[in-house]
C-alpha cells in the first residue's frame, strides 16, 4: 500500500516533462490592451497548449496594486505609473517595478459626422471638457453654437443648437488618466462628462448623437464617427495631425509592468511570453489592433530582463 503510494508519488513528481512550458500567466490592467492581450494569449497557447491565462481588463489603475500584491505576472498599463503608485510599490516590495513599453496608442478625438469641426486644439478641448481650464481654454455654453461662434470661420451647422455631449472613459482607465493629464493639462473633467466603461460604448454613443464628442483609442475608431485632427500650437487650419501621424500629440505608451526583484530571474514562462510579444507575431497583433509598435527597442528591453 505504502509502496504503491510512493510509486505514484514518484510518478507525479518525475513524470512531468521538464521542457514543455506550462503554468498560469495572469495579467491585470488596461482595458485598452485587453483585447490585444487576449489575441496574444491565444496565439501563445497555440504554441504552448499547457499554459493557461487569466486576463482582467478593468483599467490601468488596477495594475500597480495587483503587481505590488504579487497577484499577477504582468500589469498592463496604458500610461506610465504615477509617482504615488511607484512609491506605493516601493513601500510594499522594496524595489522598483520594471516597465516594458510594448506599443504606443494614439488617443483619437471623435465627433459625429454631422459636426462641422475638423480640427481642434488643446485649448478648445480644454474648453469643452474641463472644469478647471488649466490649459487656458474658453468657457463654452451648453450648445455647440458657442464653440462654433468662438471659432468663427465654421459654417453655421445644423447641429449648432444641440447640447454638447461629452464622453469619457471611467476613472480607472489609463486613457482617462492620460486624457486628463496630457490633454486637459492635469485639470478636472466637468461634472457633465459622461463616463462609459468601454471604448466601443463611446463610439456607439458618438455615432448616434450628432451633438457628441468623445475620445477613444485610435484602434477602435470605425467609419461611423469622424476623427478630429489636432493642431498643436494655434488653431490655424491645415496644421492638424491625425492619429498615426508622426508627432501626433496625444500618443501614449502601452506598458507591460513586471515585478522583478533584484537578483531574481523571471520564470521561463514569463520570458517566453515576453519574447512572443516582442516577436513578429506579437507585433503583428498590435498592428492589427491599431497600435503603433515600431522603433521602441522592444527586443532589447525583453533581452535585458530575460538574458
Amino acid at each position, binding site marked *: 500500500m505504502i509502496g504503491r503510494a510512493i510509486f505514484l508519488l514518484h510518478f507525479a513528481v518525475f513524470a512531468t516533462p521538464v521542457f514543455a512550458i506550462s503554468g498560469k500567466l495572469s495579467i491585470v490592467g488596461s482595458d485598452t490592451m485587453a483585447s490585444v492581450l487576449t489575441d496574444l494569449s491565444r496565439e501563445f497557447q497555440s504554441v504552448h497548449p499547457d499554459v493557461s491565462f487569466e486576463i482582467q481588463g478593468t483599467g490601468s489603475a488596477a495594475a500597480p496594486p495587483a503587481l505590488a500584491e504579487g497577484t499577477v505576472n504582468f500589469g498592463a498599463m496604458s500610461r506610465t505609473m504615477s509617482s504615488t503608485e511607484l512609491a506605493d510599490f516601493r513601500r510594499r516590495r522594496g524595489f522598483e517595478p520594471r516597465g516594458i513599453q510594448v506599443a504606443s496608442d494614439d488617443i483619437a478625438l471623435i465627433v459625429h459626422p454631422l459636426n462641422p469641426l475638423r480640427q481642434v486644439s488643446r485649448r478648445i478641448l480644454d474648453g469643452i471638457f474641463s472644469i478647471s481650464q488649466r490649459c487656458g481654454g474658453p468657457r463654452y455654453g451648453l450648445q455647440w453654437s458657442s464653440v462654433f461662434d468662438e471659432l468663427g470661420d465654421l459654417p453655421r451647422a445644423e447641429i449648432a443648437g444641440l447640447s454638447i455631449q461629452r464622453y469619457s472613459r471611467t476613472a480607472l482607465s489609463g486613457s482617462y488618466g492620460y486624457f486628463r493629464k496630457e490633454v486637459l493639462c492635469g485639470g478636472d473633467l466637468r461634472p457633465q462628462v459622461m463616463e462609459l466603461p468601454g471604448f466601443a460604448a463611446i463610439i456607439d454613443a458618438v455615432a448616434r448623437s450628432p451633438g457628441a464628442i468623445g475620445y477613444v483609442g485610435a484602434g477602435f475608431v470605425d467609419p461611423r464617427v469622424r476623427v478630429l485632427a489636432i493642431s*498643436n*500650437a494655434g488653431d490655424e487650419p491645415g496644421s492638424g495631425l491625425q492619429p498615426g501621424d508622426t508627432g501626433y500629440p496625444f500618443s501614449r505608451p502601452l506598458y507591460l509592468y513586471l515585478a522583478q526583484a533584484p537578483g531574481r530571474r523571471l520564470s521561463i514562462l514569463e520570458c517566453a511570453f515576453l519574447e512572443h510579444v516582442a516577436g513578429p507575431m506579437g507585433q503583428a497583433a498590435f498592428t492589427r489592433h491599431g497600435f503603433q509598435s515600431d522603433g521602441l527597442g522592444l527586443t532589447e528591453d525583453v533581452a535585458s530582463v530575460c538574458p
Partner: protein
Amino acid sequence: MSVPRQRFLQDFLFAGLVRVTSVLIGLLILGMFIQMVLIVRPLFEQPSAVARGSSAGLATHQTESGLQVLDDTGVQLAVTVSTPITLPKRNLQLSLASGPEGISIISESSSATVGTSSRRRLAMPGDLDALSLVTTDEAEQQLLLIFNSGAYRLIKIYADGRLQSGVSGSLPPHRSVLSVPGRQSWILVTEDTLEQVHLRFAQGRGELVPLRTLAIGQGLRHVSQVSPSRRLLVTTRSGSTQLWQLGRPEPATLDMLGSDSTSANWLSPVRFRVHYESVPARDYELRDGVTGVSAARLFLPVQHEGYQEPGYYWQPVAASDGFEAKLSLVPLLIGTLKAALVGLVFAIPVAVGAAVFVGYYLPSRRREQIKPFIELIASFPTVVVAGLVGLWLAPRLTDSLPEILGAVLIIPLAMMAVFGILHRLPRASGRIGSVKIRPLVLLPALVLVLSAGAVFGHWAEQWIFQGSLLMWLPTHGIPVQQLNSLLVGFVLGFAIFPVIFSLAEEAIYEVPAIGATGSIALGATPWRSFQDVVLPVAAPGIVSAVMLGFGRGVGETMIFLLLSGNAPGSDWSLFSGLRSLSATLAIELPEAAVGGQHFQILFLGALLLFILTFVINTCAQLLRQRVIGKGRVRR
C-alpha cells in the same frame, strides 16, 4: 439502553447545530452592518499620533523640482535664482537674473529634435531679492512670480519658448510661501495666519485668488511643508501643534505632542519630527488610516482649488500627483434618488393598475395564468435589459423624444377625455358600465391613444418647440444628453414594476372577497366596492409594495452602469445624465486602494445605500405586518 441515548444525543446535537447556525447567520447579517461601520469609522476620527522614537530611518520628504528653497525647519526663506528651472514637459529651461529693467527671464529651449536651441528673453520690473516664490503651474504653461509685498505676476509660456507677461495682481504681504502639491494653490505665511490662494483660469486668463484662511488662533511660531496628502503641521506661539488637513475648516490639535514644541516637520507622509525647547527632538507617526474627512466636505458645497465656484463635485481619482480629491457624495445621492423616483413614476401606474385588474377584476383562473407571466420579468437579469436597451432603444428614444413624451403624457389626458365623454352621454346609455372590456377592444384602443400621443408630440415639437425639442431645451438652459435620467428611469421602471405589481396584487387579492361581493350584491359597482371596501384594507400593502419597489430601484446597479452615463452632475434635470451610488461602487471599488480615503468613502456610500434600503424595507415590512396583524381571513 445505548440506542435511546444515541438517539437522544443525535436529537440534541442537531438541535444545537440548527440553533448555532441560525445565530451565526443572524450575526453575519449584523456583521455586514458592523463591518461597514468599522471601515468607515476612521474617516471621522480625530487624528492622533504615536511616538516612534528618533532613531528610525529618515525618508526625506520630496520637494518640487528645485523651485523653492527651504531651510531645515521647512519655512522658505528666499528664492535662489542661480539654478535654472527645468520644465520637462515643455523642453524648456528658465533662468532669472537681475537686469537693468528689474528682472529678466531667459527661456532656453532644450529640445534635441529641433537641433537649434532658441533663446528668448523677457524683462519685467521688480526686485529679484523680494521674490518669495517662483514656480510654474502643473501644465507648465504659466510662470508664477510672487513677491514678499504680495504682488504677483503670471507669465504665459508658449511652446516655442516665447514668454508673455500676463496678469498681475496683489495678495496680502507675507513672510514666505508654501507650495501645495498639485501646483494649483499656495499658502502665504503672514505674521499670524496662513492664507491659501489658488490659481484659477477664466476665459483663458489665469489669476491668483484667495481660497481660504487657515485661522491659527494663537499666533504662529513655525509651519511645516505641506505633505503629499495635503496636511501641514503648525506650531503655535504657545507651543502646541496643530495638524491641518487642507479643505477642512478646523485643525486638529495634537495634544499628545506636549505644549513646548518649537517646530514640527514631515519626514514622510505620515511621520514627522517635533523639536522642543527643553527636551530633544522626537519622531511621531500619525495613526494609520486616519484621513479626517468632515461631514461638511461630503455633503456641503466645497470650493476646490482652481474651480470657479463652490459646488458638489465627485472626482476621486487623481490625474496627477498632488491631486485634490473631490469627494462630495451629493451628486451620487441625487443621481440615485432622481432615477429611482423617475422609475417609480413609470412603474406605479402600470404596476398598480395591473395589480388592481389582476387581483380584483380578473377571475382566479385567469389570474394564475397572467401573474406568473408578469413576474417572470422580475427574474430577468438587469444586465440583459440594460444592455439591449442601451444598444437598441436608447438612440431611438432620444431621436423621438417628443413623440414618446407625448405618448406618455396623453394617457392621463385620454383617461380624462374618456371620462368626460362617458359623463356627457345621455342618461339612458348609463348601462355602458356593464360592457365587458376585452383585450381585443383594448389593444387597438391603447395603440390608438398612444399613437395619437406620439402624433401630438410630433406636432408640438414642430409648432411649440421650433422644430426641434433637442435644440429648444438647451437654448432654454436645459442640456439634453442621449443617456439621460428619463431613459434610466424608464428602464428602471421596467425592472421594478413586476416587484410592485406582485406585492400590490397580493395585498389586493388577500382582502377577503366577501366584503367586495357583498357590496356588489347591495348594488354598488365593482369599482365602488373596490374603492370603499377593498382599497382601505389593501392600501398599506400597496404602499409597502411601492416602497419596496423604490428600494429595489435605489440599489439596482447594471441599469445605472450601462445607461446612466455616470456623469456626476448634481442637478435634478430629467434630460441630463446621472451617476448613482451603486454604479460608482461597481466602477471604483475594485481598484480603490484598500484602507485609503477613497476606499473608505466608497464604503460610506455603500453604508448609506445599505441604511437607505434597510429603512425603506423595515418601514414597508412594518406596514405589511400591521395589515396582517389586523387578523384578516385569507380567501
